[in-house]
Structure formats: structure tokens, C-alpha cells
């Protein structure tokens, strides 16, 4: 019997709970492996008889494949197998077919770097030499890489003859998605405004920039059974797609997730895995594939670039009367829903009577976009928060006061439909306002920027098992790759719920055949959803253990409670027995009925949305246009911080990715449609010397949908920096910036243009 948490607890009730393990900062369980070099990542495994495979990629941004002749490559000594799109199974769902076509081009190549063929050979060197012998005849077609250009009637069509659903009249054949959100009377709202600002913004595509390139090792035996080792955010996803693409049943494919060297959403799909499996099937030997950094840039990720028109009306005392955004996102050569997520999040921070967001996804000759930390939200909220800042500036109002006046709160009808439950935006804004950073003096050429941010957070399908070992230790088995310390937080929740020391718990991420299905590690869902399932698995084990104690004591199972890691009688009427600890119950399990375990499988609901507010001080050099980040503070509602160090880590890491997006990072295409900066030298992510310390303030407004009040914290942190930095730069340089990244040449041009 568990008494500490009742389904439907309110945030206020959750706030009163006292924790022993939750909220502490123990060392992470995988830490020693990672500081000693023992941890095995995607590229670190080898197998006897292993072959190496590499990929032939399109040199064209857009071309029809007339023919592919692989005979000379196959005839080369050391070459064991070659595959093209012909070696994969046609998919019934268009989404899966798009993913497969992205792994191996079918009929047309749609971007520079699109995979065309792959060779498995005795070494990387031989495989690369064989690629040069593959003859591909192309009919080069006109291309388009710009979002606005791809919407013109003159634009080349990527998917000829394909009909996309729900596209209004007047859009061309490259528009693959259209969405509308909002409520209220826009015209009436704008009529109430004392001031209306309309602006257009552009943001560049950025890459997730994980330091570990994609890597996999696949084996497919003559018995039709396969094994994959891979760095991924979701090995069940890899299993399902890879099996479908080569036409085997999922039960015949076992996928094991390696340690993952960063993902940020970019490892939520497949690129190499089905290819390696198909090659292994043909060659009858294990096949290893590791991308180069250039391939990572040219053919994986990135996020969408955007072009947005935005209009906001405000009264002179700071009340927002209406807001409208028209968001156009390009996500590369295949359809996606990132623009929809942008439209849903754009105005989420505000309690508005009249709001409308319209969103278009447009196909371009760029790589198929992949999720990137709060996909769609940073660029949408950047535009809203920039215009709100400009309104505050024009009206002489305090930007935090204006946000507080308009902030979404419990009961607010959100701009994307649902009514908010308990949320932490007001508390987060108040914390920012009260922080010394907000009133610290600024130096010459410095400016302070503010922005709100929002992300929904996902929940989803989750399975957790928990074995109570005879020595009183506990093995937690879950199925979500640990990308930022989740084994620590899962272990902590198990220890908390069971009432035992953390050292007694070890959590592992099992392969696809060892535990039930799990959705991908994405949407900030793992600490929330896997944590919830872990707590419920622990309760199942506790129920079992209470039953064992009742059996030993000869009393009713309902008369046993679980307190501080031990079974106790519920009261005097139940009988007088000393507490029976988990260790004691575990030691006797063979005598009391056999192994004790708990498990929980669920499609979790109740993810709590998370808001953040960022403050940044920047200094802009008027001579060079170079921006330096002088001070940065992140305020974010975590619901409940399980392991505060790793919550802070998410806030800091997200903020710095957003700073890179604001100032430096950009996919640059030439007139020829080729990516010009496919490497870390020319695609410059923030380095240590670019940054100050990133201060953090964690707020805890419990999520009623989680037993401990947890909200996802992984993504919100990347949302506010774009506008916060842009607003800071605008104040420091004395000119408004409307395009990201705000590289030194763009800032100089804006300063010169204002003279």
C-alpha cells in the first residue's frame, strides 16, 4: 500500500512532499566509464569478420537518376556487397517511404549529399575506392534551397505529381503542409491597439552539432535474424524502420543502443542502419558504417530555416491586444511538421484575446530536416519576442513588466488550443525580475536582452522493469538511450520510491528484445515518462513485497504499509511486528513465493509544459560588429528537479546552442546548391572562450501529471536565446536586427545602414 501520492494530486500537494534522494546531486552511474574512456559509443564496437561500408552521395542539389552501374565496383577485389534503392522494400506509409528514400535515393536525388549507393568492403579504403567505380548517370535539374524561393510558382518541383493533404488553393506543389491555430477576433484586437508593429524575420538552418557522428554495426545472418549496434535516441525506432525497410519481422531484429555522443533530436531517425543491414544480408558478414563529419553536415539533421511575417498590437500601458504570425519553414526535401510546432508555440507565453498563427512547410533541395531541441519553437518565439521587445522599447515600458502583464497562467486558453493547467511562467518572470542580473549596470556598447520561451514536452510509450535481487539491491531495466544523465535520475526515483539508498540501485538501458516497447528519447520525455513508469514499477514491487511480509506475519496484505524501505503493519490493529526491510524480504524471496519484480508499461499522458525566461548582457563592438556575451542567466520551471546538476546542464547546454544559433551558426549554400560549410571549422559552434558562465535559477512549480511533479527540462532552454540575444544586440548596437545569425558582417551592415 502506497500512501504518499494519490492520483490527481495537485501541484500544491506535491510541493509538500519531502524527498530523501530526489533533489540531491550524486555522481552519475555511467560517469566513471565516461571519464576513463571505457564507455562504448557507436563507432567503438568491432565484430569478427567485419566489413566496412561507405556511401556514394549526390554531387547535385537536384537531379534525376537515369542509371546506376555498380558492376565495376562489385568486381573490385575486397568488395563484398553493393546496395542501391533497389535493395529495399517499398513502404506502405508515405512517412516511412520518405525516410527510406532519404537513406537511399529512389529515382531522383533531392539534395547535395543525398545517398545513392553503398559499398561494403574489407576496409574503408577499399570501399571508398569502389565508390569511385560506380557510374551514375544524372539528368541535372534546377534547384532551390531558399524557403521563399521554393514557394514561387517558378520554383522547381521536388516531388512531381505528389498530392499533399489540406493545402489551400494558391500554394505551389512544394508546399507539403499547412496549419492554422488561434482564437478571437483579430480585427477587433488590432483596433484596440495604440501601436501595431509588423515585421519580417529570417532564420538560418542550424545543425544539432552532436560531436559523435552517426555510427552503426549491423549483422544479418543466413537465418534471417539481425542484430544492430547503434548510437541512436531510439533503438525501437531503429528496429521498426530497419526491419520494415529490408522486409523482415521486428522479432527477427534485435537492436542495442550504444552510449550516445549527443543527439539533440538529430538521432531520432535512421540513416545508416537499414543500409548496413541490407549490405550485411547480401555479404553474410557484419558491416560497420561510420559517417564522416562532412557527411553529418551534408546528409543529416539540420533543423528548418524560416521566414516569418509578424504583427502585434499593444495598448500604451502594455497590454497585447492581438497577435498574428505567418510562418514559412523549409525542412529540406521531405515533408515534416516543424512549421506546425512553430505555429503552436509562437504565442504560447501570452494570455491573448485574439491570436492567429498560420504555418507552411515548404520542400527545398536541402537535407531532410531532423528534430532539433524544441523543433520549430526557437525561430517562432524569436519573432514574437523580438516584436514584443520593440513594442516595449517604443512605449518606454519594462519588458519583464509587460510580459508579466500578459503572461499565460493556469486557466489561460493557450494560443494553440488547450487551456493551461498549473504552469510556471509568472513565477519564472518574477524570479527574473527579482534577480540582481536584471538591475546590474551596463557598460558602453552593452545591451540587455530578455525573452520568454516555451515547449510542450512529450510523454508516450514507456516500459520499465525492476528486479529485487536477493542481496537487497535493485536492477532497473528501461529502454530509452541515456542522452544527458537519465540513468542517474531514473535510479534516484527508484531509490526514492523504494526507500533504499541510491547505491543499491543500478539502471540499465536494455536492448529491444529485453523489455517492452519504448518511444524515442525525445520531447524531454525520459525523466518525466520513464520516471513515472519507474515509480509505478517500484509500487508494483512494493505491493509484492508487502504481500510477502503479510504472508510471513500471517496478516492481511492490506494491513501492510511501506515506510522508509520496509514493510510495516498499518497500525496496532494489524499486529505488532518490527519493520521488515527490503533487504530482508529480498533475502527470503525464494522461500516466500519466488522472485520479486515490478514492472509497468504505459502510454504516458500528462506531460507538463515548461516555460523559461533568459536574461543576457551583450557587448557589440561598433568597429567589427562582433558580439560578446557578457552575462547570461537562465530561469526555468523544472516542475521538480530530480538531479539539479543535470537540470542545470540542460538549461546551460540549451542556452549555448541558442547563442550559437543567434550569433554564428548557419547552413550556407552556394548558387550551385551545394553546402559550402560542411565542417566544424566553417560551421562554427560556440567554444569555451566565446562564453561566460551560464547562471541558472531552477523554479519548481510541480506538474500535476507526474507523481513527483516532474516537467521535461531538456528543450525549453534553446528557445529564448535567439530573441534574448537579438534584443540585447539591438539595444547595444542601437539598431534592430531581423535576421539570424547576427554575424559580425550583418551587424556592421545594420549599423552602417542606420547612419
Amino acid at each position: 500500500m502506497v500512501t504518499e501520492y494519490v492520483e490527481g494530486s495537485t501541484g500544491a500537494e506535491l510541493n509538500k512532499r519531502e524527498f530523501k534522494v530526489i533533489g540531491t546531486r550524486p555522481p552519475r552511474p555511467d560517469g566513471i566509464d565516461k571519464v576513463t574512456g571505457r564507455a562504448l559509443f557507436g563507432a567503438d564496437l568491432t565484430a569478427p569478420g567485419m566489413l566496412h561500408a561507405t556511401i556514394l552521395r549526390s554531387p547535385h542539389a537536384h537531379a534525376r537518376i537515369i542509371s546506376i552501374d555498380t558492376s565495376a565496383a562489385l568486381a573490385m577485389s575486397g568488395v563484398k556487397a553493393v546496395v542501391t534503392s533497389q535493395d529495399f522494400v517499398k513502404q506502405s506509409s508515405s512517412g516511412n517511404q520518405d525516410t527510406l528514400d532519404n537513406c537511399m535515393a529512389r529515382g531522383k536525388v533531392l539534395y547535395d549529399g543525398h545517398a545513392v549507393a553503398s559499398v561494403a568492403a574489407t576496409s574503408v579504403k577499399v570501399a571508398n575506392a569502389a565508390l569511385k567505380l560506380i557510374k551514375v548517370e544524372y539528368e541535372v535539374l534546377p534547384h532551390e534551397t531558399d524557403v521563399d524561393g521554393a514557394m514561387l510558382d517558378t520554383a522547381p518541383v521536388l516531388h512531381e505529381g505528389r498530392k499533399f493533404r489540406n493545402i489551400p488553393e494558391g500554394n505551389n506543389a512544394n508546399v507539403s503542409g499547412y496549419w492554422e491555430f488561434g482564437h478571437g477576433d483579430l480585427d477587433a484586437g488590432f483596433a484596440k491597439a495604440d501601436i501595431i508593429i509588423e515585421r519580417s524575420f529570417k532564420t538560418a538552418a542550424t545543425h544539432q552539432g552532436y560531436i559523435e557522428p552517426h555510427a552503426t554495426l549491423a549483422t544479418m545472418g543466413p537465418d534471417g535474424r539481425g542484430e544492430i549496434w547503434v548510437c541512436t535516441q531510439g533503438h525501437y525506432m531503429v528496429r521498426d524502420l530497419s526491419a520494415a525497410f529490408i522486409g523482415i519481422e521486428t522479432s527477427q531484429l534485435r537492436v542495442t543502443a550504444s552510449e550516445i555522443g549527443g543527439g539533440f533530436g538529430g538521432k531520432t531517425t535512421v540513416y545508416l542502419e537499414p543500409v548496413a543491414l541490407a549490405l550485411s544480408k547480401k555479404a553474410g558478414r557484419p558491416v560497420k558504417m561510420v559517417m564522416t563529419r562532412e557527411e553529418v553536415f551534408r546528409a543529416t539533421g539540420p533543423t528548418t530555416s524560416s521566414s516569418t511575417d509578424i504583427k502585434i498590437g499593444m495598448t500604451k500601458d502594455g497590454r497585447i491586444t492581438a497577435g498574428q504570425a505567418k510562418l514559412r519553414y523549409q525542412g529540406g526535401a521531405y515533408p515534416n511538421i516543424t512549421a506546425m510546432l512553430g505555429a503552436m508555440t509562437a504565442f504560447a507565453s501570452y494570455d491573448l484575446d485574439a491570436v492567429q498563427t498560420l504555418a507552411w512547410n515548404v520542400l527545398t533541395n536541402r537535407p531532410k530536416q531532423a528534430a532539433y531541441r524544441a523543433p520549430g519553437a526557437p525561430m517562432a518565439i524569436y519573432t514574437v519576442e523580438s516584436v514584443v521587445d520593440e513594442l516595449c522599447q517604443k512605449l518606454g515600458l519594462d519588458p519583464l513588466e509587460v510580459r508579466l502583464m500578459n503572461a499565460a497562467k493556469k486557466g489561460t486558453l493557450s494560443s494553440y488550443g488547450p487551456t493551461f493547467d498549473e504552469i510556471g511562467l509568472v513565477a519564472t518572470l518574477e524570479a527574473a525580475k527579482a534577480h540582481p542580473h536584471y538591475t546590474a549596470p551596463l557598460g558602453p556598447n552593452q545591451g540587455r536582452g530578455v525573452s520568454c520561451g516555451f515547449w510542450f514536452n512529450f510523454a508516450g510509450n514507456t516500459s520499465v522493469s525492476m528486479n529485487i535481487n536477493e542481496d537487497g539491491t535493485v536492477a532497473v531495466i528501461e529502454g530509452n538511450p541515456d542522452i544527458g544523465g537519465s540513468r542517474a535520475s531514473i535510479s534516484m526515483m527508484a531509490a526514492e520510491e523504494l526507500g533504499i539508498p541510491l547505491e543499491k540501485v543500478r539502471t540499465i538501458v536494455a536492448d529491444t528484445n529485453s523489455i517492452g516497447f519504448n518511444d524515442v528519447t525525445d520531447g524531454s520525455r525520459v525523466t518525466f515518462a520513464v520516471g513515472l513508469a519507474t515509480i509505478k514499477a517500484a509500487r508494483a514491487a512494493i505491493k509484492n513485497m508487502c504481500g510477502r511480509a503479510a504472508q510471513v506475519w500471517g496478516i492481511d496484505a492490506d494491513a501492510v504499509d511501506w515506510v522508509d524501505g520496509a514493510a510495516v503493519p498499518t497500525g496496532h490493529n494489524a499486529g505488532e511486528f518490527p519493520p521488515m526491510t527490503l533487504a530482508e524480504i529480498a533475502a527470503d524471496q525464494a522461500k516466500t513465493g519466488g522472485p520479486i519484480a515490478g514492472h509497468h508499461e504505459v502510454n504516458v499522458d500528462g506531460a507538463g509544459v515548461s516555460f523559461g525566461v533568459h536574461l543576457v548582457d551583450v557587448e557589440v563592438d561598433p568597429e567589427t560588429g562582433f558580439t560578446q556575451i557578457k552575462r547570461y542567466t537562465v530561469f526555468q520551471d523544472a516542475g521538480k528537479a530530480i538531479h539539479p546538476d543535470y537540470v542545470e546542464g540542460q538549461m546551460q547546454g540549451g542556452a549555448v546552442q541558442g547563442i550559437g544559433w543567434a550569433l554564428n551558426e548557419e547552413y550556407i549554400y552556394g548558387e550551385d546548391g551545394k553546402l559550402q560549410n560542411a565542417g566544424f571549422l566553417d560551421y562554427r559552434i560556440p567554444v569555451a572562450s566565446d562564453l561566460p558562465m551560464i547562471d541558472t535559477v531552477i523554479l519548481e512549480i510541480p506538474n500535476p501529471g507526474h507523481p513527483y511533479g516532474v516537467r521535461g527540462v531538456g528543450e525549453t532552454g534553446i528557445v529564448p536565446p535567439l530573441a534574448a540575444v537579438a534584443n540585447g544586440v539591438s539595444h547595444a548596437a542601437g539598431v534592430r536586427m531581423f535576421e539570424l545569425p547576427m554575424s559580425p558582417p550583418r551587424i556592421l551592415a545594420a549599423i552602417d545602414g542606420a547612419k
Partner: protein
Amino acid sequence: MSKIHVSTTINGDAVEYLCEPSETLLDALRDHVGLTGVKEGCGSGDCGACSVELDGRLVCSCLVLAAEAEGRSVNTVEGMADGEKLHVLQQKLLDHAALQCGICTPGILVAAKALLEKNPDPTETEVRYWLAGNLCRCTGYDKIIRAVMDAAAEMRGA
């Protein structure tokens, strides 16, 4: 072309391997010596994940030919701990939660060790500039910088 025989010292041990003339030290360490703690993030010297010390000098092992290790001394992350006892830097990275995914961690550790051997009392700015060649995409560097500063203080006191 025939392979080159290399005799070298890695983490204090005499090691021999055969390599192709075009092979990098990074590939030799990972593929021939089994030291997969040395990571490849870019292969072009831009990310620092493959950092090793070569005769005491911090290098990207992807920019050194495997054959160049002949007669020299190479130190990798695998050589930092003394048996079960972690190096102060390793312990401080754990204590400060200064890693998330961990892929950059071996390179950061090797680079930070090289810094503290040269400069036992670095300022925050010196640490930031020394580690500017080691990309980390997870942490925003905050906790890494704190961990290295803390390790330096402890090593000075020891």
C-alpha cells in the same frame, strides 16, 4: 604499398603496430591498439575529441600520421587513472557533473591535463582559451570550466 612497423610508447607501455603510410595516429590507436577512448568527432582537427599528448605536447591525433609515433611517447585518456584511483581531473569532472553525453570528455581531460602541467594556476579565461579547441555541444562549458579550475586548486594544494 607495404605497411610500416611502428615501435612506440603508449600510456607508458611499449607498443608495436603495423600501419599504412596514410593512416592517422587516431586510427592506429582505435583500430590497432584498441584504445577507443580516443574519439573521432571530425577528422580535421576542429573538435578536439581525439586529443592525445605526443611527447608531452597536446595534439589532435587525427592530424598526426600513425607512423610519426615511432620512438615517441603517446598519452591517452586511458592512461590517466592509476588503477582504480582516478586522476584529480577525472574525479572533478564527475563531482561537477561536467559531462552529459561524454563523447568530448576524453579529449577535454587530456587537454586539461596538458594545461595544468604547463600552468598549474590558470585563470578562468586561460582555461577557456586553452579548451577552445575542444568542442562540447551538451554542457555550455560552464561545469567543465568549474571542474578544471577546482582540479587545478586541488592539485596545487596537494
